[in-house]
């Protein structure tokens, strides 16, 4: 029986819940354990209620767990809200207790922090106490703190002392299911979703990112910003999302790979620009980190409500790619691939993630490959018989026209968002209009050939759970639960969503199998899409749309209701 512990740290916004959680995750990662942590917070800077829930295991974990082994309550409300999730032998750490059961320990975080040299270290006290209960060797915590504060020796000293006081405060207390800490090498990297996307952009040599701040998409841009010192990367915060998308279109036109990231509301503002990228055949990459909507919706919560929106966003018809990665390693590779394919086919590519993915912390031992070279799909004067005759929108069988860059030679690059002739000049000619619409949409055949089929997990099962994007880990764990209970269930999962890989989907689903979609929206948008593209209908839908991520047990129970 493997180890599987969940620690929940809760309190008010501004109390440093994330700091405690991140420190713990770093210690566990360093010790060779696997972690998966979700970040739950309100749309406010101070007060309210937030929590960081970290699952620690000696096996890979890709989903949050619904039961808590250790609850660190930085305020009373955390205890009241979450004590019913505690396992029977769970432990609670609180600053002040009020005669609760013996598993509720009073740890005066702030008093101990004061002793260590300042209230600011109370997070370190809390992390210390929690790690001590898990039985984590102090040495590892010490080295994590040294890495964090090493440059400021006074601060480090204070934190080390706080850590020690935290450790001592729970001396003799341990979880019944305590870990065996046998110093293995770290399992892959400790990384959140946002960072994996930004790293993927670097791996595609993306050099410009323009954005308007919007939760939960800002993390991607914050990471890009952190690269701008050591890489040729410019990140510009702009006046609105309309400016952001037009700016990256301009940058791409001039020859530099560019991206933006936003959430649903910002994506709404970008839709006209998306169409501009479509008709001008300018490659761009747009990250949509979904949150519940419409309009402002729930700014800091999660959702998969934008699938049908992004595959159709903007008026009229033009090809685009839509990808929804499920893990950091996949997000890294998918983002890099999105840039490459956007440029190869001269179309916009959309990466559809969500708050759950962006703000969650994973240990991922995926490869994160670094390309030796970057293939650019551009031409110059030397590739042309006569640069003076260059036509940006030359009609070709593949629909892909040679793409030259402005001011890089004699060839004049004429681009227009109006319908245009092969040379880029505006035209209302009816034959030309039809030819240009045909040319643009002709790319779909090639694009379809680039799509990876959905991933199969126990695909020979009688019942299949079908999901997309961030929920793969949750669904696979639900499948394991169901199989343990004797239910013959498997799953298939989509990363590449558009153009829709209909052939592969038909092969997987059209075997008289019952399939159920699992989605974080109200209407089963992938289910609708599958029906539209393959004619196959799902037998049911397991949906969660309260803004919170799925727990595996909810998926398993959702299916069992159908089977009753």
């Amino acid at each position, binding site marked *: 029986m493997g180890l599987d512990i969940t620690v929940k740290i809760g309190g008010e916004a501004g109390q440093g819940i994330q700091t405690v959680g991140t420190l713990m995750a770093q210690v566990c990662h360093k010790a060779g354990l696997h972690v998966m942590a979700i970040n739950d917070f309100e749309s406010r800077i101070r007060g309210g209620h937030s929590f960081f829930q970290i699952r620690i295991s000696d096996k890979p974990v890709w989903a949050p767990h619904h039961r808590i082994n250790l609850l660190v309550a930085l305020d009373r409300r955390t205890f009241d809200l979450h004590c019913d999730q505690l396992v029977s032998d769970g432990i609670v750490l609180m600053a002040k207790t009020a005669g609760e059961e013996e598993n509720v320990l009073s740890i005066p975080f702030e008093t101990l922090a004061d002793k260590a040299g300042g209230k600011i270290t109370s997070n370190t006290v809390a992390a210390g106490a929690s790690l001590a209960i898990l039985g984590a060797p102090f040495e590892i915590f010490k080295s994590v703190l040294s890495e964090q504060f090493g440059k400021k020796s006074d601060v480090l000293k204070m934190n080390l002392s706080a850590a020690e006081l935290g450790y001592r405060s729970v001396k003799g207390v341990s979880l019944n299911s305590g870990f065996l800490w046998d110093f293995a090498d770290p399992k892959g990297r400790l990384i959140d979703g946002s960072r994996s996307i930004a790293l993927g952009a670097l791996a595609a040599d993306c050099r410009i990112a323009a954005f308007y701040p919007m939760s939960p998409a800002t993390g991607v841009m914050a990471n890009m910003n952190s690269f701008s010192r050591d890489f040729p990367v410019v990140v510009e915060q702009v006046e609105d999302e309309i400016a952001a998308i037009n700016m990256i279109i301009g*940058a791409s036109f001039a020859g530099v790979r560019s991206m933006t990231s936003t959430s649903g509301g910002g994506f709404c503002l970008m839709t006209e620009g998306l169409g501009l990228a479509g008709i001008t055949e300018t490659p761009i990459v747009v990250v949509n980190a979904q949150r519940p909507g419409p309009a402002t919706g729930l700014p800091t919560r999660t959702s998969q409500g934008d699938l049908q929106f992004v595959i159709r966003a903007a008026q009229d018809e033009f090809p685009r790619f839509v990808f929804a990665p499920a893990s950091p390693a996949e997000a890294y590779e998918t983002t890099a691939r999105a840039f490459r394919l956007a440029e190869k086919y001269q179309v916009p590519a959309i990466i559809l993630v969500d708050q759950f993915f962006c703000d969650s912390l994973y240990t991922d031992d995926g490869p994160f490959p670094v390309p030796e070279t970057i293939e650019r799909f551009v031409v110059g004067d030397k590739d042309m018989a006569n640069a003076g005759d260059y036509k940006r929108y030359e009609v070709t069988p593949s629909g892909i026209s040679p793409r030259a860059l402005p001011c890089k030679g004699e060839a004049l690059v004429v681009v227009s968002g109006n319908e245009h002739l092969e040379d880029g000049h505006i035209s209302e000619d009816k034959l030309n209009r039809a030819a240009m619409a045909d040319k643009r949409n002709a790319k779909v055949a090639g694009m379809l050939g680039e799509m990876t089929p959905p991933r199969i997990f126990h695909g020979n099962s009688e019942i299949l759970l079908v999901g997309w994007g961030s929920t793969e880990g949750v669904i696979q764990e639900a499948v394991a639960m169901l199989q343990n209970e004797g239910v013959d269930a498997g799953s298939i999962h989509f990363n590449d969503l558009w153009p829709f890989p209909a052939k592969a989907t038909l092969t997987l689903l059209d075997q008289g199998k019952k399939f159920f979609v699992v989605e974080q929206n109200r209407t089963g948008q992938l289910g609708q899409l599958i029906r539209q593209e393959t004619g196959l209908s799902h037998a049911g839908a397991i949906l969660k749309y309260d803004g919170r991520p799925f727990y595996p047990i909810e998926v398993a129970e959702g299916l069992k209701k159908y089977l009753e």
Partner: protein
Amino acid sequence: MVTVDDYYSDFENKWCPGCGNFGILAAMKDALVKLEIPPEKIVMVSGIGQAAKTPHFLQCNTFHGLHGRALPLATGAKIANHDLNIIVNSGDGDCYGEGGNHFMSAIRRNVDLTLLVHDNKVYGLTKGQASPTADRGMVTKMQPQGVMMESFNPLAVALVLGAGFVARGFSGNMEHLSRVIQEGIRHKGISLIDILQPCVSFNSVNTFGWYKKRVYDLFEEDYVPDDFDKALKLSREWGDKIPIGILYQKEKPCFTDGIATLQEGTLLSREYDPKRLQNLLNPPTT
């Protein structure tokens, strides 16, 4: 040597006969020839409207984009390759109406480009509605009771936002306009040139004759455009006398000068280096 023939385009012009845009196009070509800039060294970015069609009527690299969005698009191109010589052709509706937010931000960023706003106080392409620069009270089919908003003053707004080159031209004075455009292109930073032009189809008030009677040339007045307060006062002069020329000019650090990584060359010219990413992903152990 660059000649005006280099800029000749046989693409069918789509403006009304007598449109002020013809004067602006001629002045633009004249300025480019005098500055000896060949077509392949110019990028024209435009939004939507009659003015925004300008790049199709001469030879150059062109991005004819969305209504109001020329400036952010041009800014992106400039970040990617700050060696580009960019001219934005916009109109009063495009730049000050739909694109107002971008107009403010582009000035605040001080992006090194030349912004020509063909200002005829009406929406020509949609048949004559009032634009942001229409004078209060101007009657159109869609504003039968007259415009009820204050007229937008682009020059005053640009000045208070810190623009380093604020000028006004008149489509009816080609030579003067060419000189202003040449100065604008030479200026480092954003150069706003608001160009008064008649709309022969939809503006029966601000006609060629109406302007001709009122405009006076600041070059002839020996006006020195280095005083912000004087410039602000001039920017508000409207009615019987309307100044044309450079109201204000001051060199300031432009946007791309402030971005550290661009000092090592244009983003476009930089080499991809897999080692850097390798080091970031897998830091060498110390």
